[in-house]
């Protein structure tokens, strides 16, 4: 029933839910995607920080080998938390494992090596 002064026109318009259902019926099934150039897609996103987060196969050197317990340091310590791409993480852990070194020891070894190389 319309209102006395014609201000309430709710009944004139079709129910909104029906409009939505009708609109939905116009959509067909998802079409197959055109092939994309994955290397180009990945390269375009990398500068914005979009890199692979999926685990890579770990090297045998990083699996199943013990690392000795850390020694009590002789000087004050600072905490360092870093995030690495999985590939670099795996390399670092494999490096530490290969020397049965703790991470701080492995980092020191790498720094010592780099400094020695730079000095030569």
């Amino acid at each position, binding site marked *: 029933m319309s209102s006395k002064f014609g201000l309430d026109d709710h009944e004139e318009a079709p129910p*909104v839910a029906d409009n939505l259902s009708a609109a939905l019926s116009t*959509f067909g099934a998802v079409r197959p995607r055109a092939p994309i150039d994955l290397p180009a897609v990945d390269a375009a996103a990398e500068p*914005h920080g979009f890199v692979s987060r999926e685990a890579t196969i770990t090297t045998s050197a990083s699996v199943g080998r013990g690392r000795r317990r850390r020694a009590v340091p002789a000087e004050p310590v600072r905490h360092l938390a870093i995030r690495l791409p999985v590939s670099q993480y795996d390399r670092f852990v494999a490096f530490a494992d290969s020397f049965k070194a703790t991470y701080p020891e492995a980092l020191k070894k790498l720094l010592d090596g780099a400094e020695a190389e730079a000095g030569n």
Partner: protein
Amino acid sequence: MPVIAVSNPKGGAGKSTTTLLLATYLAQSGASVCVLDADPNQPILDWKTKGQTKSQIHVVGGVKETNLMELLENQNQQFVFIDLEGTASVLVSRSIALADFVIIPVQASAVDVRQAGKAIRAVRDEEKVAQRSNPSRKIPYMVLMTRTPAPGAPVSSVQRQLEAEIEAAGIPRFKSSLAERLAYKAIFVERLSLAELGDYKVGNLEAAAQNIHELATELVETLQGIEKGSIQ
């Protein structure tokens, strides 16, 4: 027709909530809908498999960089949503590259909007890559403000500033926003769709349903505009 990626590299922006609310609402309105749950926590797969929902949405988990294209090719629903992880990853950028439309949910916080900027720049660059092989290829996107105050509640000055900045930058944005509502949290707690929450006393369900109806309607109108070429 559309594959819709829901992306913001910032976690907690409301991607899964937006995806689930829209997917279940479109399904209850008569559409066939699939959700590719590409979030490592699998919140929507968990919702579907561990709950009692009767929603007809089809949920696929285990989405990876390597099987994304294959999973997409296997879907024949009208709408496919990809609920993406809250990080910048190759899976996210490939999903954007394959999408017909990208929804970028953002909370009214500077961190969210700055992270959303990453997604926007990625969309634009992926579009340029796609145009090398198909000059007419577009990847339209829109920002969706999430966890906003319910209608009538005071809007923070931060939100007003962000909205003004988004508009000044010419970034397309949904007129509707997703309000902060108890019901939107309850759908994950009870593992039910919004329409199935009727017996639970969780906030203002009617207002929540109205909010989703408006958002879903705007989404469908936008997708129709894209299909007709009137929105790019």
